[in-house]
């Protein structure tokens, strides 16, 4: 049964969780509270084989709530960085990350805005994005769907490889490149259009295709002329999310924690 009311954050968590539904036994890494809660929800509701970490150095037996610890963390394994690299190079991981820029190829940037030698804004650095991108499946969460995030042309510094034939010898990316799902505050997308074109899979309640297209720096494909609405969380899912997030961190992601169904506003 659909929840009588739900927040945009809860809608997004449920949409993120779907990314891991058919993955089987892999390490699920959700960067940021909503992808992390999505991985937690996937593990506790339909893919118990997922491995999740405490965010530091251990595999946790049950998902660890974001924010302050509410109780002891039950552990099941060791995830020091050396082993995380070894594991991810083997492909048994699916990460959902939040880059600053994403382009039509799925190339992602967390390094710099502007010129690399003297950037307008220096950010973190490429971290593990290059290796992740060609080793295991990756999905994206983009909290602000606009043309600064979904950029025209290419991202300023390609940290994650994408489906850009110009960047590969013979035009063919490494076999590990597998970009899956994009969840934004407006829609759910994938790379299932012609030649891996980004395609709208569903629109969040009250959002139209034109609004999504107008806020995207490249042309979008669509899964159907009549686009489905992103499934609303069920009452059961909302209860599960509340249990996974006792600190209510999900409420701080979007300004004023808006309703998931904009038509209700």
């Amino acid at each position, binding site marked *: 049964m659909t929840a009588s009311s739900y927040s945009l954050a809860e809608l997004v968590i449920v949409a993120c969780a779907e990314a891991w539904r058919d993955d089987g036994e892999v390490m699920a890494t959700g960067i940021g509270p909503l992808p992390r809660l999505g991985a937690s929800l996937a593990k506790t509701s339909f893919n118990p084989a997922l491995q999740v970490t*405490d*965010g*530091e*150095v*251990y595999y946790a037996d049950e998902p660890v709530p974001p*924010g*302050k*610890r509410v109780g002891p963390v039950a552990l099941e394994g060791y995830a*020091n*960085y*050396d082993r995380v*690299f070894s594991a*991810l*190079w083997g492909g048994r991981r699916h990460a959902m990350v939040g880059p600053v820029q994403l382009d039509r190829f799925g*190339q992602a940037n967390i*390094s*710099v805005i502007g010129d*690399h*030698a*003297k*950037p*307008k*804004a*220096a*950010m*973190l*650095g*490429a*971290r*593990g*994005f*290059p*290796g992740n*991108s*060609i*080793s295991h499946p990756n999905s994206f969460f983009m909290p602000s769907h606009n043309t600064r995030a979904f950029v025209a042309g290419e991202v300023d*510094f*390609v*940290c*994650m*490889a*994408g489906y*850009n034939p110009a*960047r*590969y*010898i013979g035009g063919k*990316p*490494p076999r*590990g*490149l597998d970009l899956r799902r994009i969840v934004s505050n407006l829609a759910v997308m994938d790379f299932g259009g012609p030649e891996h074109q980004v395609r709208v899979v569903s629109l969040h309640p009250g959002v139209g295709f034109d609004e999504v297209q107008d806020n995207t720096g490249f042309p979008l494909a669509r899964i159907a002329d009549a686009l489905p609405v992103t499934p609303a969380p069920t009452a059961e899912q909302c209860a599960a999310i509340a249990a996974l997030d006792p600190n209510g961190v999900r409420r701080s992601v979007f300004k004023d924690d808006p309703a998931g169904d904009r038509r209700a506003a």
Partner: protein
Amino acid sequence: MTTMFDKRMTADAVVASLSDGMTIGIGGWATRRKPMALIRAILRSDLKDLTIVSYGGPDVGMLCAAGKVKKLVFAFVSLDHYPLDPHFRAARQTGAIEVLELDEGMFHWGLRAAAMDLPFLPTRIGIGTDIITQPGFRMVKSPYDDGEELVAMPALRLDAALIHAHRGDAKGNLLTLSPDPFFDELFTRAAPKVYASVEQLVPTADLDIEANARFALVERARITGVVEAPLGAHPTGAAPDYQIDLKALKTYVDSAASPEAWADYRARFVDVSDEAYAAAIGGRDAAAALPRPVY
């Protein structure tokens, strides 16, 4: 009577053994187990034009703020709970430093190549990204039937490495007791000179190697010098001895507000003795009582 075999030295003696223009690797990871007492000693010295190789945290930012860095080899510079290091950002955004930006795993691979005395190690990492459009990268073709084109990650050869461990003896045997040793062992193998600060120097027998074998970082022949430096990783964490000091990290972040703020930070936390440093951060007991951070 055997001759005493003793690698103990002071932080200032470590710095005196380094030279301008050296490539220096720094162990730890972001806000964890950075050899900050040794970094502060570099800040107090006239050492310059360094190439720094680091999984970066405040070590990188401080060296940038003090104008010590010519080039940075990095995959990130992060303060974790304060994601972006303002001193690092300023150095990047003014074009004050050259950089070689790597993936975290490529970085590991480069250290491993140096540790194995190989010119490079092959990898797919970097393919399809701007990492390999930076100068210095070449591709290598697999000589086997697959013929795959791979990135030849060049060895990250260091002139010296600086690391921080929990326990050590005068001979250079070390215990790294934290849950993740990160890539400190590879740093020790990628450099001809390796200096380790330790929380506590103890007699060899007290290392209790039989019980602690999995914490023994590396054979002591890799270690050139050992510096006893309690709180030597502060404000980064050296769990289980003490956790990251988020308040002290915030003070560090705020030091980027103006040249005056940085001068004030230096006067209080850098241009001081170890004893004065411990007092300035509220004392050793306060450090030992810091709560475990949440990620």
